[in-house]
């Protein structure tokens, strides 16, 4: 295969990046001082990418981008229950995203939509979506600490398949990279170096995220992200979107969360104390400790059209069809059934939405099995 032409992104950024007002806003926004705790939280992204690569290499997930976004020295084989958990988490969010984006109509197009991923880190979803959905008709935004966005931009710069996925090599697609190498913008992909805690103090939401189209149906994703913030901060981050940035608009808005729950039983207590020894604090865990607390959280934050939640064990049992379950079960001998159930009951996916002016925007979500009870 002939090597594709790879543009030198270093030359692209000169001048052109600074030509837009938006980037100045981005540069000015990451003034929050980095603390030791932040470094630990930033490091959790590495855990996630190593787990993803392990699941990919064993055949749980198809993801050609996993390797490019994992530091090779960290690559390791995870235990079967971790691989299965990574599989369920990833495919469940994929399913929610797919149902939000919808299937192309007979004309081959989908309605234009937008995804905003909070604390996206090394997540590969944007590359997978742009590759699998052509034309994607999707604007994808990722927000994270500058150290994480910089790492991602470095990976994009050195990896042809990532550039292809973003359609960067075509000359028609303007690529802008900030001077510091921590912000990147194409016509459909935006990477912002942002400390989420700085959102609430911003006087001008649209200046902070200038590329967000507030008229589009929008999906917010937090994969183990908001849980590291204090309850107040986490609420403020969501409110920033629901009330301020997208508040005045009537476009449909949804939120998908993936995070631990049930901290109060023996497994949960051990999880909290084990993570504490690594300096990791799951700050909202006790506030949203149950399925019902998660549903209430969505109601309270304005996702009034629907709120649902399910733990990972429920999703494995109910969302994964039998044939696929059998395929996955065959990949590795999963001996530790009891441990799997324990682990899987302590993570959940929660989803909720407000319809706005399009009552059908989240129709695809209403048929997904949700877990009743606490």
């Amino acid at each position: 295969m002939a090597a594709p032409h790879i543009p030198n992104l270093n030359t692209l950024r000169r001048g052109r990046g600074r030509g837009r007002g938006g980037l100045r806003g981005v540069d000015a926004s990451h003034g929050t001082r980095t603390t030791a705790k932040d470094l630990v939280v930033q490091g959790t992204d590495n855990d996630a990418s190593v787990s993803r690569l392990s699941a990919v290499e064993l055949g749980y997930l198809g993801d050609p981008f996993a390797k490019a976004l994992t530091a090779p020295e960290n690559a390791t084989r995870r235990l079967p229950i971790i691989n299965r958990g990574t599989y369920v988490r990833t495919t469940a969010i994929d399913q929610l995203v797919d149902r939000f984006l919808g299937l192309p109509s007979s004309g081959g197009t989908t309605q234009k939509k937008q995804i905003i991923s909070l604390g996206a880190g090394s997540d590969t979803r944007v590359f997978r979506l742009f590759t699998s959905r052509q034309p994607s008709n999707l604007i994808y935004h990722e927000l994270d600490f500058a150290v994480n966005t910089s790492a991602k931009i470095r990976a994009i710069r050195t990896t042809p398949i990532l550039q292809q996925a973003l359609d960067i090599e075509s000359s028609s697609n303007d690529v802008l990279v900030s001077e510091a190498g921590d912000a990147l913008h194409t016509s459909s992909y935006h990477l912002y170096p942002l400390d989420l805690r700085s959102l609430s103090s911003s006087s001008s939401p649209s200046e902070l995220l200038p590329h967000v189209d507030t008229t589009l149906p929008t999906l917010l994703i937090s994969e183990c992200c908001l849980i590291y913030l204090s309850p107040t901060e986490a609420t403020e981050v969501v409110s920033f979107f629901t009330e301020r940035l997208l508040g005045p608009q009537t476009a449909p808005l949804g939120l998908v969360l993936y995070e631990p729950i049930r901290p109060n039983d023996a497994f949960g207590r051990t999880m909290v104390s084990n993570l504490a020894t690594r300096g990791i604090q799951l700050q909202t865990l006790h506030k949203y400790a149950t399925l019902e607390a998660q549903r209430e959280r969505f109601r309270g934050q304005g996702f009034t059209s629907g709120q649902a939640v399910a733990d990972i064990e429920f999703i494995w049992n109910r969302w994964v069809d039998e044939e696929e379950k059998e395929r996955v079960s065959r990949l590795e001998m999963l001996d530790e059934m009891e441990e799997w159930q324990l682990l899987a009951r302590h993570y959940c996916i929660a989803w909720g939405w407000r319809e706005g002016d399009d009552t059908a925007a989240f129709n695809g979500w209403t048929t997904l099995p949700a877990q009743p009870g606490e």
Partner: protein
Amino acid sequence: MSDLDRAIEQLRACRLIPESQVRELCYKARELLIEEGNVVSVDAPVTICGDIHGQFHDLMELFRVGGDVPDTNYLFMGDFVDRGFYSLESFLLLLCLKVRYPDRITLIRGNHESRQITTVYGFYDECIRKYGSANVWRYCCEVFDYLALGAIVLGASSELEPTGSSMNDTTQSTMPIDDGELETEVLNSHGEVTSTSYRPRFRPSSVASNDSRNISPPRDISAASGSTGTPTRTGVPGTGASADGNGSATTSRTGAVLCVHGGLSPLIDSVDKIRLIDRKQEVPHEGAMCDLLWSDPDEIEGWGLSPRGAGFLFGGDIVKQFNHLNGLSLVARAHQLVMEGYKEMFDGGIVTVWSAPNYCYRCGNVAAILELGEDTSNGGTIARSNGEYGRSNGVLGEGNTVVSPGRRYRVFEAAAQDTRGMPAKKPVADYFL
């Protein structure tokens, strides 16, 4: 001091022995194990232990709680290796003890004592990391192939000798029935009784009231502690039987106890059929040998498919029938994590014993060991029935009812790793972040 004693001392300190010594140890162990049948006969008193999984410091805690070898007889039901960080130290210590005190310790095979499973769950990697090659892993796997598949415990007493100072035995226990037998007793790691159950004393003249209650583990062991004073244990742990028995009423009517790592197999309807298996091989993916190491009891009728992908699920009816046909009063098995350390099912016909506290440094569970006392009422004579006990009677009639042995569970928590002057890597458990 012999080389073996030196090796034991070194391993007890969580320090490995040289590769050449491992090789020699494994050779001796195989010579010993090859003489054992597929089902080893073990006399009570004995302390039955479940999965260890390389949690060396917790194994030391187990010995502290249950008594040391050779003072206490032990029966380990497999899964010595994988998952924890000290599979080598744990397994090699147990193997040394086996070679040093062959009649005091019995090791049977778990599903993790297998080449295939150990390459996925950590033991292989640990051998490479600690010895620099796969040699030690290979020696150990050869030993695995010779481990027995099960054990039959004979001569267990139906009644427990009370531990004496039970501080709290009215809160979570059935009230002592007048002249009742102490059937089960649960102790915490301080030796304090947290729960007891009694059954009416057996009377040969009447139909025995086989009151084998399905005792449930206490919800919160720690809640029951915090009392005055630590009771002193009488006698050596594991020898809980009374010195003179309690009269002739308790003759040797306690059925044998089958110990196996996983459970039953649809291909095995008698203990004798286990004896016919050619066990000296890697654990197969299916068949009787695989089932014994992989199956689980479940609240179903008959047999079901196992979600583990090997072995089967089996219901209470299967256990009842198997026990009846083989003159067994109890199947003791391990294999499944139970948060309370032990779990009796099917009217006490089967018990799961789990001996790895805070499993994988993540699960938050407590662990347990099961002590069966010695029935001394027959003057020490044990009905050597090899599992055929009672079968010739056809329907078990009056006076021949097989009752379950008295069962003492000692529940314990994970050891504090840094208090013993032993090397302890800070365990890092995986989570989704």
